[in-house]
C-alpha cells in the first residue's frame, strides 16, 4: 500500500516538473529517469544559457520554449517568422508584448509569464492570469508569501524550484566589455565574488545580453502544493551525471547531493535603512 502511494506521488511529481534543457544529447537519458516535460531556451530569444535551441532541433512532444529576453521592435516582429506553435506545447515568456503579438496573429498556445523579479503579490498575479495561462511566482519573496499566493491564485502557478538564481539581466555585453578592458581572453562565463559580502555569482553572456546568477544553486524543490502547475528545474552548468543524480534525488524525495541554498524563502528583505 505504501509503495503504491509512493509511486503515485512520484508519478504526480514527474508530471509537474518542467525541466530546462542544457544539452540536446542529455534528453534521452533524462527521459529514462522519468522527466517528461522539457523547457528549451529558444535560440535568438533567450539569455543566460550556454546552449539555445532552434525548433528544428526540438523533437519532444512535451516541449515548452523559453523566451526570457526583453524584446526590441525588430526581434518581436521576427518572432512570428521563427515560431511554429504546432511544434510545441507552450511558451514561457518575459516580454508582455508576446501576448499582444500572438493575439494579433490569432496564434493560440499555452502562455506562461515568467518575469523573475515581478509577480510578487497575489493581486498582480491574478490580474496577469486574465491574459496568461500561468505565472511563475517570483523567487524574491518568502515561503509564507509564496504559499499565500498558491492558496488563493485563480489558476495553477509555476515555481522556480531548482537552479542558479538570476540576480541581474542586462542588455549590455558585460563580459565582453570586462575582457576588452583588461585585455583578457574571450569567455562567455565568468565566476565573480562581491568583495564585501563575499557573495558569489556567475555571469553568462550571449549576443542579447548578460545574466548574472547567484551561487550556489537555489533549492525550493520541497515546496509542494496542489495549485502548482510546474516546478521549474534549471540544471544549468551541471554535467549529465550530475543531472541524472539530481533527477533521481528529486523524484525519490532524497536530499540533493550538491550544495544549495534557499534564497529568500526564509529571509525577508528590507528596503528602508535605519533612520528613514
Amino acid at each position, binding site marked *: 500500500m505504501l509503495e503504491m502511494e509512493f509511486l503515485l506521488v512520484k508519478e504526480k511529481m514527474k508530471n509537474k516538473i518542467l525541466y530546462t534543457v542544457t544539452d540536446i544529447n542529455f534528453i534521452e537519458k533524462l527521459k529514462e529517469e522519468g522527466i517528461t516535460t522539457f523547457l528549451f531556451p529558444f535560440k535568438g530569444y533567450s539569455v543566460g544559457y550556454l546552449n539555445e535551441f532552434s525548433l528544428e532541433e526540438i523533437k519532444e512532444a512535451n516541449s515548452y520554449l523559453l523566451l526570457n529576453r*526583453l*524584446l*526590441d*521592435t*525588430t*526581434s*518581436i516582429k521576427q518572432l512570428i517568422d521563427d515560431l511554429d506553435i504546432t511544434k510545441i506545447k507552450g511558451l514561457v515568456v518575459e*516580454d*508582455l*508584448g*508576446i*501576448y*499582444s503579438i500572438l493575439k*494579433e496573429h490569432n496564434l493560440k498556445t499555452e502562455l506562461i509569464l515568467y518575469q*523573475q*523579479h*515581478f509577480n*510578487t*503579490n497575489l*493581486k*498582480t498575479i491574478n*490580474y*496577469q492570469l486574465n*491574459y496568461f495561462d500561468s505565472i511563475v511566482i517570483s523567487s*524574491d*519573496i518568502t515561503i509564507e*508569501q509564496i504559499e*499565500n*499566493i498558491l492558496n488563493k491564485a485563480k489558476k495553477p502557478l509555476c515555481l522556480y524550484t531548482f537552479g542558479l538564481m538570476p*540576480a*541581474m*539581466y*542586462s*542588455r*549590455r555585453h*558585460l563580459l*565582453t*566589455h*570586462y575582457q*576588452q*578592458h*583588461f585585455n*583578457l581572453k574571450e569567455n562567455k562565463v*565568468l565566476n*565573480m*565574488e*562581491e*568583495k*564585501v*559580502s563575499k*557573495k558569489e*555569482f556567475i555571469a553568462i553572456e550571449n549576443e542579447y545580453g548578460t545574466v548574472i546568477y547567484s551561487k550556489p544553486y537555489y533549492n525550493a524543490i520541497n515546496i509542494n502544493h496542489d495549485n502548482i502547475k510546474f516546478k521549474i528545474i534549471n540544471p544549468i552548468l551541471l554535467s549529465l551525471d550530475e543531472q541524472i543524480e539530481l533527477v533521481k534525488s528529486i523524484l525519490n524525495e532524497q536530499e540533493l547531493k550538491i550544495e544549495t541554498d534557499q534564497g*529568500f524563502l526564509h*529571509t525577508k*528583505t*528590507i*528596503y*528602508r*535603512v535605519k533612520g*528613514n
Partner: protein
Amino acid sequence: MKEVELLSPAGDFEKLKIALLYGADAVYVGGRNYSLRANAKNFSLDDLKSACEFTHSLNKKIYVTVNIVFHDEDIIGLETYLKELDQIGIDAIITSDLVAIETAKKLKVKYEIHLSTQASVMNQYAATFYKELGVHRIVLGREASKEDIKTIKEKTNLDLECFIHGAMCTSFSGRCVLSNYCTNRDANRGGCAQVCRFTFETEENEFSMSSKDLNLIPYIQEMIEVGVNSFKVEGRMRGIYYIATVIGTYRKLIDKINNNTLTAGETNYYLDILNRCANRDSTPQFFDKLPSVKEQYFLGRQELSNQDFLGIVLEYDETTKIAKIEQRNYFKIGDIVEFFGPKMDNFFMELHTIYNEFMNNIEIANHPRMIVYIKTDHKLEANDMMQIKVFDKESYL
C-alpha cells in the same frame, strides 16, 4: 516644432521649486510610501498637497511615483493612498505593477496612469498590452533605440516619455536584485544599494560594472522628430545645484531647437556643463547603438562631489546693488565666479569684496551655509546661483 515636456526629478519641496523655476514643465516626486527611492526625503501627504498647489499655480504638472514592485504586505493602504492622491489633485502616477494600475482604474481616479520604466517597454506590442490596460503614457526602457521609439509611436500613438539624462542601471530597470543578495536591501522596493558600483573579484582582477551616465543632448532634436513627448531627467536624490544646472541647460537647448537657433558650438558647451556637473562621464548609451566597453566604469573610481556650487542668492537689493547669498562651498576674494539663473544670461565677475552678516569685510567664505553679501551691478533674483567659473560660452561660439 512640437511642444515637448521637460520633466524634472524633485526629491523635496526645495528641489521642486528650483526645478520649476529653472524651466521644468513638470516634476515627478515620491511619496513616503510605494516609491523606489525609499531612503530619499520624499513627500508626506501634506507636502504633496503644497507641492501640487505650487506646481499648478505655475500651470505646470506634478507626477507621483508609485513604482515599487509590490509584495502582498505593501498593498495594505494602497487604495486609500491612491484616493488621497486623487483628492490632492496630482496629474499622474508613475507605476508598473498591475496591482497599482488596476486599483487606480477601479477607483476611477482623475489623474493619468504613466507606466514606469521598470516595465522596460521596447516594442509596440508590449506598449499595446499596457495601452489596452488603460495606461496613458509609457516611460520607455532606457534600452529602447531610436527605431524602437519611432515604431512604438507610429503603431500606438501613446504619449511617450524617455529618460534623457542621469544615472543608469547597468541592468534593465527592475531586472536586478544584486542588492537583495549582497545587502538584503530590496532593489525593487526602493532599497537598491547600487551594488553594480561595488567591487567584484575574479580570478584575474577586481572590477566594477557600473554604467556611465546617460546624456542625450546630441539627439534631442531627433527624439522630438520621432515623437517623444516628455524628456525626463533622472535624480530624485540629487541636490539643487544639479537640478538647476541640468534642467536649466536642457531648457535652453530645447528652446533653441524649437526656435531653430541651436549651434554646434552651443551643443558642445552644454555637453561640457552637464558632464562636469555630475562628476561622471555621460554618453547617449542605447539610442544610437549598443553601448560598448567605453560606456562603463571598471574600477578605481572615486565618486567625488562637485565643488563648483558656491552659493545661492537669497535676495538682491536694487538700490544698494548688494546680493545676499547663502554659501554652499568655499570661496574667497579674487575668485572669478559665474552667476546663472532661470531669467538671466550668465555673467562672470571677480570677487573684490565679500561682507559677512554684520557687513564686515571678509577674505573667505568658508562656513557651510554662512550668509554673505556681495556687491554686483548685475541684477540678481532669489534662487539665482553662483558657481566657480569653469567654461566660457564665448569660446564655444
